[in-house]
């Protein structure tokens, strides 16, 4: 073999080697690596989405509260764009021509690059404009409209309760593959809690497209297409008239009202003031930012989030615990001389009233000293050995009454309120260095305890039921679905049900006591109705006292339990009690006869400006 034929073999060997390398690479691309197959599908398939109508929200009487309105996103196919009358277009949609021309010119310039991929040039145009456009559509080649539904509210109320609908953010898109950029999603309130039911399912038509996004054919003859499924309607527990009335009463006030039907746990009204007008959050606008920067925080749902000191309304809890622990009886009497001595020279003050008094009178008159005594006997009960054990038992009772934990209402961002723990007191006072007197504020619902208005209303409902409550909820039924079993389950507290009638009597007397008997809530009386209530006046470090009131009515077979909390409004009897009383009257009789009171309360603005921090 000469050198040349050796070389020809080397050459052919090289060819074979190179062919093998090409083959290996092809094998890798075509058989081993799967990623290219997926890319090929994303390349070639175009998904045309049909957006479903969002479910409606209906109140407890069948009145529509939240509906849909159709708007139109104006789209343009750049490749089909031709010269057109921009001024006429702007006139139809009431646009400023100059920026519009800039946008259109930019799209026109890049029309070959973008090809047939539709571009949104105007979002959420109202239906009236679209109707005009439709008549003249032939003048605007390349333009078409895509229908999108927005929310429409029959009354401008309950913004915090309903929440709002907005374009989905990138974080959600990353977490939940259902959502694609430009989709709408419920944010906060009922819209968020019931998003999965309300939104329905998007429909899709799949096409095979070319590189310019031009549709070529239906993908696999439409085998994978799906029709849009409309969202489910929600039947709410809210009484829209009561809700509206409550919001009207709360004008110029800061606070919350929660009304519950004790026999079911259904929330009749859930008001946070200042509230938000949901119509302002429809579509794209700057209102949201404005609300966010409002110092009164209208987006903060006080009714389920704000941990307020419950104040004297909490005395009822201590009375119940005392009775159940048998450290007091309804006949137990304590004296009060303008307060309770905590230590040398330190008094927890009280107002002037008769002394000594029994349990019923203590509720009627809201005596501080009485409850300091009750609280001490609970905590220092020799049965538990030491303060810490006594406190733990007390804490367990309070928790069973629904404080310090979420009630489980079907709304997002409910907060648990605050309930102090042993370790918290150990931190403050040092381990083993605190006694019942150190934490005596808890006796009158002050200090480290914080309760949401919802928890207070739930407490009122528990007393109204004489010992149990249902999980409060704002949606009675998702149309076509069974309500959760939990809604039918009675949650009993640790308190024996026999303890409750005494409390009910006390609350009745606090409202209906004879003039001069020291009854604190006489202002809440409603003609021909038996209302049971308890005022609260909670001190707070930031300014004027908070005014609060919990009540239920009628006394037998109660239909409504209520908590009203007004920030920095002074005595419970001044603002909270009348508001609660008006709400009850409105709900139970359908109208309010005490127009003078109504006028005064509605027009008043009790909330004093906060002290500068």
């Amino acid at each position, binding site marked *: 073999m000469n050198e040349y034929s050796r070389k*020809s073999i080397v*050459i052919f060997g090289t060819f074979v080697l190179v062919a093998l390398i090409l083959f290996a690479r092809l094998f890798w691309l*075509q058989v081993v*690596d799967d990623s290219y197959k997926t*890319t090929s599908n994303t390349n070639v398939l175009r998904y045309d989405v049909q957006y479903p109508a969002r479910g409606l929200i209906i109140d407890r009487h069948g009145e529509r509260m939240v509906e849909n309105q159709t708007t139109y996103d104006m789209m343009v196919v750049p490749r089909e764009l031709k010269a057109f009358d921009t001024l006429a277009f702007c006139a139809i949609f009431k646009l400023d021509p100059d920026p519009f021309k800039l946008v259109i010119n930019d799209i026109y310039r890049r029309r070959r690059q973008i090809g047939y991929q539709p571009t949104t040039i105007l979002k959420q145009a109202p239906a009236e404009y679209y109707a005009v456009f439709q008549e003249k559509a032939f003048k605007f080649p390349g333009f078409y409209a895509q229908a999108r539904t927005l929310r429409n509210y029959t009354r401008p109320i309950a913004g915090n309760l309903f929440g709002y609908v907005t374009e989905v953010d990138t974080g959600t898109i990353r977490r939940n593959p259902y959502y694609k950029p430009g989709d709408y999603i419920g944010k906060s309130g009922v819209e968020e809690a019931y998003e999965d039911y309300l939104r329905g399912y998007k429909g899709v038509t799949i096409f095979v497209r070319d590189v310019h996004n031009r549709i070529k054919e239906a993908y696999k003859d439409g085998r994978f297409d799906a029709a849009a499924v409309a969202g489910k309607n929600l039947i709410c527990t809210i009484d829209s008239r009561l809700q509206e009335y409550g919001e009207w009463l709360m004008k110029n006030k800061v606070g919350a009202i929660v009304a519950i039907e004790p026999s079911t746990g259904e929330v009749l009204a859930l008001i946070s003031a200042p509230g938000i007008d949901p119509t302002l959050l429809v579509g794209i606008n700057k209102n949201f930012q404005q609300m966010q920067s409002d110092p009164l925080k209208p987006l903060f749902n006080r009714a389920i989030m704000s941990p307020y000191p419950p104040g004297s309304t909490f005395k009822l809890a201590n009375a119940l615990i005392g009775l159940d622990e048998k450290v007091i009886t309804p006949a137990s009497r304590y004296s009060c001389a303008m307060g309770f001595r905590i230590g040398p020279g330190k008094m927890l003050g009280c107002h002037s009233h008769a002394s000594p008094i029994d349990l019923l009178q203590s509720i009627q008159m809201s005596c501080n000293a009485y409850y300091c005594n009750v609280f001490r006997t609970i905590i220092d009960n020799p049965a538990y050995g030491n303060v810490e054990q006594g406190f733990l038992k007390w804490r367990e009772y309070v928790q069973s009454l629904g404080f310090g934990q979420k009630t489980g209402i079907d709304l997002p961002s409910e907060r648990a309120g605050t309930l102090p723990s042993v370790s918290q007191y150990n931190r403050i006072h040092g381990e083993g260095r605190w006694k019942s007197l150190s934490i005596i504020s808890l006796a009158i619902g002050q200090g480290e305890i914080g309760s949401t208005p919802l928890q207070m209303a739930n407490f009122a409902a528990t007393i109204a039921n004489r010992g149990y409550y249902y999980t409060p909820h704002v949606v009675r039924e998702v149309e076509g679905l069974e309500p959760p079993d939990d809604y039918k389950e009675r949650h009993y507290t640790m308190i024996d049900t026999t303890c409750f009638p005494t409390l009910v009597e006390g609350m009745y007397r606090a409202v209906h006591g004879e003039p001069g008997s020291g009854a604190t809530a006489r202002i809440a009386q409603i003609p021909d109705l038996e209302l049971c209530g308890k005022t609260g006046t909670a001190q707070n470090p930031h300014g004027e006292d908070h005014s609060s009131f919990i009540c239920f009515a009628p006394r037998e077979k109660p239909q409504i339990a209520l908590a009203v909390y007004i920030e920095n409004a002074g005595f419970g009897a001044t603002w909270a009690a009348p508001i609660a009383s008006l709400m009850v009257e409105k709900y139970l009789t359908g109208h309010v006869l005490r127009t003078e009171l109504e006028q005064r309360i509605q027009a008043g603005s009790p909330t004093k400006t906060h002290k500068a921090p």
Partner: protein
Amino acid sequence: MKENTHLFLKLDWPTVGLYLLLVAIGWISVYAAAYNEEHSTIFDFSQRYGKQFVWILSALLIAAFILLLDSKFYSVFGYAIYGVVLFLLLLVLVAGTEINGSRSWFILGPVRLQPAELAKAATAIALARMMSVHGFVLARRANLCRIALVILLPAGLIILQHDAGSAVVFGAFLLMLYREGLSGWFINIVLFAIVAFVLSIVWEPVSVLMLCATISVVIYMLYRRKIKRALILTASLFGVYFSIVKWLFPTFAIDVAPDRVFILLSAIALVWGAATAIRYKRRYVWYILCFFIGSAALVYSVDYVFDHLLKPHQRDRIENLLGVKVDLRGAGYNVHQSKVAIGSGGFAGKGFLQGTQTKYNFVPEQSTDFIFCTIGEEWGLLGASAVIIAYLLLLFRLILISERQKDAFARIYGYGVIAILFFHVVINIGMTIGLAPVIGIPLPFISYGGSSLWAFTVLLFILLKLDMARWR
């Protein structure tokens, strides 16, 4: 009449068969790549597949014409043909039409002609003419210079047309020169230079230098047949280097670039090497020293070449190929889409006319430079391998043909054809699957286009005609 039957018996029918097979595959692939439902017949002349049919018919006419022409024509008029083509290359610079950024086309009515395509055949003929002269010695410096001139002249003119891809093809003639006596070392050094160039883009220069140094030491020791010493020396070189850079510098907080250390060490080694070369009169040491210094120069000139001599789009393509930069929407778009098309074909392909990536234009140039995508997508690994095997068989056949020539002219020309075909096939397929840079050269016989089909037909059938004359 008798003369004619004789003629067709002598024709190398296996080659013609492979040629017809590839041309047919090309026609079908162009049909699939440019398929348009409104014009579904393959003979629709408003579509590319209809036109390709015309190009095929005319190519066959050209082939027949070449077979009828006297075989002496090419050796006799070798330089004249070369001269005419050079003239056309000059003319196109002045009177040509610019398409896709390169001024390399003549447009004559419906026909587009690219002289660069003809230049490959003409150069092969001129080289064969020159090297087949009796007594021609390749190793002589003057001859090497003449060969380089013949190759570089058309290549240079083509670069002036901004068609660097077609110019690079002329490098393929090295393969033919190798067969005709060029040392294998030379080819290896060229290949190594390409590898070093690529590595210098991907790696730090000092790493490439280390590689070169290692190779130098290993070659030296292989010459001296002392492999153990080679290993020890290489290991200690790296040991010293790393102990200085990784330990000495950090410990004493010396801030000197690692390159410098390596260059210093190399300089010491070079001086020592030169000293032994003089003392023991070892000539190969000088070669190795030249090799090392040359590669160092190459490594440090890469940045300059890369940043100044290459065009931005060429830079982007190379960087995308090497994975230095990933830009799937810009420079990397072609290759990415091409890989998607081929990759989605799977083992058996999506079926004829079922390919979506190429049919709906996701792959640019899908009927010309990226025609292999259609094959890969619709016929899968099976079809793609079949095409590669067909080319391999063709090349094998051409090697046989070339080797059986008694006439040096025919053999040299034959290897020119082999070299050009091989280069086109490998680079074209390589670029569609991300193994070679996108330099925009067609796949022989398969890509759409009259100019390239005619040129490859001419190239091949001249060889077949020369082969027919071997019994004369």
